[in-house]
């Protein structure tokens, strides 16, 4: 296996063979309830050597499944939608719910198309894109209302009943995944003109289905079995094994401090990133994305040490005062 931005040298036929063999050899079954039900952190694997974008279907099967599952998730949108003050940003996708080629509040998964060149041969890769469910997601940890949270199974889930739609999660996400629907949510009942602006939506890894022991809809629907879910350690080992066997590349293991989504590709991700159409709702795929909050971990540790520092300093100051007082009284006695 190589770093994600190294150049691979592997023909399409070769990597398909390797991938198929690897799956067979690994003994890892395709989604099973037992896997999804397992306690501890889960992760998903997306094998780009297997995804074919569902030719013949208007909308890839995984995207259709996702849309169907989440069809009624967003409540009716206020009409008219309050216009926030003073920055008058309103994001309304309620009249474009059918959009499936980018992320929207009504579409949490789309298949990104990448036209790349492998050994001089043009090749089309299909890259299912959604929330990466990061290991330490800033979108969740610094949500001011804890509306977004990483659960023990690894899923990063926005509670639409708590979210004010301030889009902070989108701002701090390296891929700007969460998408806002204005005119829904708790903010309507408080100060809609001055505070909040809707609800943020994104993939929740089918958290409810996982709770019932089912697999995420996209994984279950994939005819190519290009996606897997299972315990994180096992998924990572499998992703690394596949990447090694196809002399390919991994994405998601190290990005943003580690995620719960491992892409395996025969083509380096910097080349995929260079060719995909990027923009709002269509995130980049730049390798080596750093976790922004990593730079302040040192200060955070100092915060956690501050109580001990204060206690020790207080005790030492008291001791010093007492010593000075005793010495002073001793001198007086003399």
């Amino acid at each position, binding site marked *: 296996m190589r770093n994600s931005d190294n150049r691979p040298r592997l023909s399409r036929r070769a990597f398909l063979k390797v991938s198929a063999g690897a799956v067979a050899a690994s003994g890892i079954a395709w989604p099973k309830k037992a896997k999804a039900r397992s306690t501890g*952190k889960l992760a998903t694997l997306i094998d780009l050597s297997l995804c074919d974008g569902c030719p013949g279907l208007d909308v890839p099967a995984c995207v259709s499944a996702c849309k169907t599952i989440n069809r009624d998730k967003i409540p009716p949108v206020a009409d008219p939608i309050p216009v*926030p003050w*003073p*920055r008058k*940003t309103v994001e309304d996708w309620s009249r474009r719910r059918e959009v499936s080629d980018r992320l929207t509040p009504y579409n949490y998964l789309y298949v990104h198309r990448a036209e790349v060149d492998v050994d001089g041969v043009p090749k089309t890769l299909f890259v299912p894109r959604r929330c990466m469910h990061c*290991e*330490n*997601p800033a979108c*969740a*940890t*610094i949500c*001011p*209302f*804890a509306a977004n*949270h*990483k*659960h*023990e199974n*690894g899923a990063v889930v926005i509670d639409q009943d708590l979210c004010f739609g*301030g*889009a*902070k999660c989108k*701002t*701090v996400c390296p891929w700007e995944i969460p998408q806002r629907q204005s005119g829904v949510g708790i903010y309507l009942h408080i100060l809609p003109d001055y505070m909040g*602006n809707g609800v943020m939506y994104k993939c929740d890894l089918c958290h409810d289905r996982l709770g019932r022991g089912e697999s995420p809809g996209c994984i279950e629907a994939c005819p190519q079995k290009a996606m897997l879910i299972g315990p994180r350690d096992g998924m990572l080992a499998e992703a690394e094994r596949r990447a090694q066997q196809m002399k390919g590349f991994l994405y998601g293991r190290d990005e943003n401090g580690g995620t719960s989504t491992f892409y395996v590709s025969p083509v380096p991700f910097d080349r995929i990133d260079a060719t995909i159409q990027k923009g709002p709702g269509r995130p980049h795929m730049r390798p080596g994305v750093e976790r*922004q*909050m990593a*730079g*302040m*971990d040192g*200060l*955070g*540790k*100092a*915060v*956690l040490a*501050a*109580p001990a*520092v*204060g*206690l020790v*300093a*207080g*005790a030492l*100051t*008291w001791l010093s*005062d007492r010593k*000075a*007082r005793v010495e*002073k009284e001793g001198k007086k006695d003399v």
Partner: protein
Amino acid sequence: MSDRIVRERNLVVRHSIVELAEHWAVALSGLALLVSGMFQLPMGSRYYINAIPGLAWSADYMVSLNVHYAASIVFVAAALFHVIYHGLRGDRGMVPRKGDLRTSIEVMKSFFGKGEEPPFHKYLPEQRLAYVGMAVIIAMLIVSGLVKTYKNLYAPDLNYAVVLWATWVHNIGFVLFILAFAAHIGAIALKPNRPMLRGIFTGAVRLDYAEHRHPLWIEEIEGAKPGAGAERPATLPEGTVAVEEAPVVAEAAAEVPRESGAAGGESGVAAPEKPGEAEPGSGKPPGESPSQG
């Protein structure tokens, strides 16, 4: 207790340097926490605050979180220092006493011309109550903030109930802290309280003010230092009012000793002025003159 009377300068030392350092560490870091905490809300861009020169960082959550962390270190350390230091010293001056609530209401009424103030100890009863209120708010903020920081660093998948509790305790504490801060500043704006303001900058307040308004405190100081009370008149002559300006100008924090000084003031200084003789008529209107009770 570092409190002592410096009669020749018409001053009473009210706060030690350590106490001043504690107060300002908590106050300034608390202010930085308030501002950086507000900027953790998505308001910098929405309200164009980031367009104000010098405040572009208001829309950068990473910068404001860095500021928040940095200020927290000072805030948390100072608060814990305060608890252990004064706990070990056995300082109880700010601990509420029986009847403080009722007396506070009387004092507040007196601010609006209804009735007269009772004599005070070092602190007003409402200061003691406010201290407890502020301590509770600060404890809420610190405990919940530490949980949130731990979660940010080590446990993003911390139990959701714990995260929700920590978040909302922090948010409610944030609002209460703003209110308490406003009340704190508002209290200083009240005319009868203004002479106390210099105390938190220099460590000392005017002796004539203290004798007028805090006679129980002065008695405590003098009671602890036998012989010193002889210089002090038991009560001010009737009709005498407090002065606005102290008859000394040369006082600074550097002059405030950290330890208790000897009773009776410093040697080699000009003859002490008796506060009761100081500039009648130059201070508070007669109606606001506190009684000696």
